[in-house]
């Protein structure tokens, strides 16, 4: 049985599916669901995502069968067929994907069969069952990717050794996805490879269509994109490797070494790339040697994040910024096995820092875990307080930060108090942006 969630930081599987398709160039979602599902997503995928906007054909433009009581009683397939046919007439897309909501899944509408009738007549139409009760946004991402890998990516028996695919970074749920994908591509490029990310700048639906020719799939998550990677391997005979999310110079170095090893890149090239990038990175960070030490910029910290960002942010603040992350709350819904994989990422930090890591979906519990992790002052005159402190989390965690008297930066979904365009926090360049944003807050009142 599932438990209620207090202020969940994700939508349902259909919401995640719609978000994923919103991020895919010129892909059109056709939702087969009640009229409100898409409207609800429209709000969550704009105002809570650094103001991503309505996109090309999402927000209120999202084609939707808007089934209501009568369709639920008599079945909604006819209505869906009409909706698909008319969407093809009006909306200019490269790929049309029907995603289904709870109600039509429960009554057993066969959306896949309806979509196949269009597919058989040569129209680029697919359908995925994504009823919201199947899981959260991350599940929706996996369902859509799995479907695309199985039924849309073309069979390519001949592989291109110099091309890889990267996934596991969940667009929109990672609010910095677009800038982050640019960085991932650039890192692969430096190693001599071309990377498809499917959702990145300058990519088209063809990059996805031809993705079967890649020699390797690189998954930058311990839990997301793994299922689709397995489907990809079965369907297209492309192996996959799981690597850490390259946030911060230490993780990025690890990323480059692991990817380099998997792709059998000459060490000297990997060493050279790392050396150049570190020179670039420290060329800037060097400037902060003054202010960091003059104003004492070391901070205690709490990190509230998803399974991808949690370990990556923590390692960055511990091993690169020299901070003291004492508590990490991972807010995703994870199985025991998945929790173990994520927890493993917190082991062996070079700094020797080992924060307390908890898995909890409920927003109010963050402060309870904090109370358990750090004693409250019971009127002691001399007390080792949690100060100075910094909270990295979502905009939902601002109140918690205020309760600690800590600075706060929204880095994980939902983010309603920042505008995010092509900002990235990955790779060496992204680490510089993150440092600018964090230390920018510390000097903000000067």
């Amino acid at each position: 049985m599932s438990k209620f969630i207090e202020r969940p930081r994700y939508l349902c599987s259909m919401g995640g599916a719609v978000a994923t398709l919103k991020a895919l160039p010129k892909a059109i979602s056709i939702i087969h669901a009640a009229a409100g599902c898409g409207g609800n997503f429209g709000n969550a995928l704009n105002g809570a995502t650094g103001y991503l906007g309505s996109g090309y054909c999402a927000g209120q433009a999202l084609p939707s069968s808007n089934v209501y009581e009568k369709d639920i009683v008599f079945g909604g397939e006819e209505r869906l067929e009409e909706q698909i046919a008319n969407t093809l007439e009006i909306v200019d897309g490269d790929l049309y994907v029907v995603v289904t909501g709870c109600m039509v899944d429960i009554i057993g509408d066969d959306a896949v069969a309806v979509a196949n009738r269009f597919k058989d007549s040569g129209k680029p139409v697919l359908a995925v069952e994504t009823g919201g009760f199947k899981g959260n946004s991350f599940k929706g991402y996996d369902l859509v990717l799995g479907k695309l890998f199985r039924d849309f990516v073309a069979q390519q028996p001949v592989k291109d050794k110099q091309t890889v695919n990267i996934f596991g970074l969940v667009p929109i749920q990672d609010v910095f996805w677009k800038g982050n994908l640019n960085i991932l591509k650039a890192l692969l490029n430096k190693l001599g490879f071309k990377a498809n990310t499917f959702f990145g700048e300058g990519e088209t639906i063809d990059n996805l269509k031809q993705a079967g020719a890649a020699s390797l799939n690189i998954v930058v998550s311990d839990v997301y994109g793994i299922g689709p990677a397995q489907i990809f391997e079965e369907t297209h005979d492309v192996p996959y490797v799981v690597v850490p999310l390259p946030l911060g110079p230490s993780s990025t170095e690890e990323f480059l070494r692991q990817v380099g090893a998997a792709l059998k890149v000459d060490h000297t090239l990997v060493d050279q790339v790392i050396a150049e990038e570190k020179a670039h990175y420290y060329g800037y960070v060097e400037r902060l040697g003054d202010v960091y030490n003059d104003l004492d910029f070391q901070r205690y910290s709490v990190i509230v994040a998803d399974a991808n960002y949690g370990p990556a942010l923590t390692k960055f603040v511990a091993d690169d910024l020299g901070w003291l992350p004492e508590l990490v709350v991972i807010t995703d819904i994870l199985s025991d096995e998945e929790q173990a994989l994520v927890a493993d990422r917190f082991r062996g930090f070079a700094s020797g820092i080992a924060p307390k890591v908890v898995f909890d979906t409920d927003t109010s519990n963050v402060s309870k875990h904090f109370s358990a992790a750090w004693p409250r002052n019971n009127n002691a005159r001399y007390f080792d307080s949690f100060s100075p402190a910094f909270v990295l989390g979502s905009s939902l965690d601002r109140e918690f930060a205020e309760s600690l008297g800590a600075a706060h930066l929204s880095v994980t979904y939902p983010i309603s108090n920042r505008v995010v365009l092509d900002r990235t926090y990955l790779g060496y360049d992204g680490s510089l942006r993150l440092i600018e944003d964090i230390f920018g807050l510390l000097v903000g009142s000067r």
Partner: protein
Amino acid sequence: MDYISEKAPPVREERLRACNAYGGPSDHLVEKSKKGCLNGIKRKFSQTQGCQLNLSLAIINTIRDAVVIVHGPVGCGGGSLAQAGVNKGFKQLRDSGSRGLLWVNTNLGENEVINGGEANLREAILYAEKEFRPSAIVIVNSCVPAIIGDDVDSVVEQAQKEVTARIVPVHCEGFKTKIQASAYDAVYHGILRNLLENRQPELRTEEDELELLKEKYQASRTINVLNVSSMSRIDEYELVRLLKALDLNLNILPCYAHPHDFYKATEAALNVSICATHDDYFVEHLKEKYHIPFILRTIPIGVKYTNRWIMDIAKFFGIEEAAQRFIDQEVKQLEEALAPYRKLFKGKRVLIGGGEIRVVANAELLTYLGLEVIGLRAYHYDQFGDEMLGEQEVVQRIPFNVATGQPFEQANLNANLKPDLYMGHVGTNVWAAKQGIPVLPLFHQSQLFLGYTGVFEVARRLARILRNPSFNQKLGANVKLPYYESWYEQDAFAYIDEGNIQA
């Protein structure tokens, strides 16, 4: 009207024969509406809208000292994620000690779809009580529990014996209606059944006859003004100003009210709505149950309708003369202030979209300011629009599009009518912006729109926006809407199917 003994209110298709698909001249719309033959028109292509549950949250999320429980799969109510940041600030404008938005989702998964979700709901209620000790726990019920047969009311009945917070179930299952505004009835239904009934009379330590008389007098001069979540605190101040001038006191409900405030509502002399679409269900029931008369006729937007709104209230209290003096003085000052603006707007053509009452009132306002209204779009349409739409001569022959969202029809209208300005509701503005058209938002929760000062503020903002529309112009030149060119060559209402009309 008395549906209060029912667990859930009827939807608006049934109760008001409301429609959300129409395209044609305004006068035909009014004529058809009066004959009751709009109900049942469909679209063969549709875009997403919003549902009762989304719109219920627009009110419920504002209630102070309440916890919201969304009974559904984890995505339902996710739109609140975008509201959580600003919600606290808006609540604190009413009470500086207010907490921010708190909600719990019952996270119904595959297992609950098979075995029922009542246990999740019960646990969520007990958690909300224990964790937050709120004055009210408001449950919005989504589609899934309705189809799997969860008995929400029984869970509530049992849990109410165990918690001190008033539990308010709201039956707003999205699939039940295409008319999103049914949400207002669903919310008011929950409030009427659970926040007004079983009231405890206030205990007094000492009965003072003079005090009681004073209170009675105050109550006889107190009106409930029913606000909407799309207005600002400054809008409320303007309404307070207008009615204070007539020596009347206000209770402002339901948005940003405290659950206990609803008890007081039954003591007022009069209920005054600013939007019939929003409030008819509530005021009809307050009349039926508590014998409080109501005024539901118009919205205080623009001079004509602000005058009418004030005069209707004045008539009730028999203070028309004083009201007329006040109005004359207000209008005179406003006219002077508007003089420099009118010439800026002369001949500017505008398309307006949003809620039925609000767009029709804004048509009058913008006409008054000198613009030419060339098209209207309303989320839905019902009898409450007939008087205001029917009496504005200049809009009788212009296209009226009834559509909840449906930006493809809006894009077609904008492409063909080529307005100089689009005035629209949140979520629809971007599509006009991408066509290069300057946009004036129809409402804004931090700006003033209502009353006389609202007219001036709208004029001032409009002048500002028209002064430099470069942002949208550049956007229009560089981005494309998702529709084929051929769509703009078709009739904007080509996908509206009148074949199924239930006369």
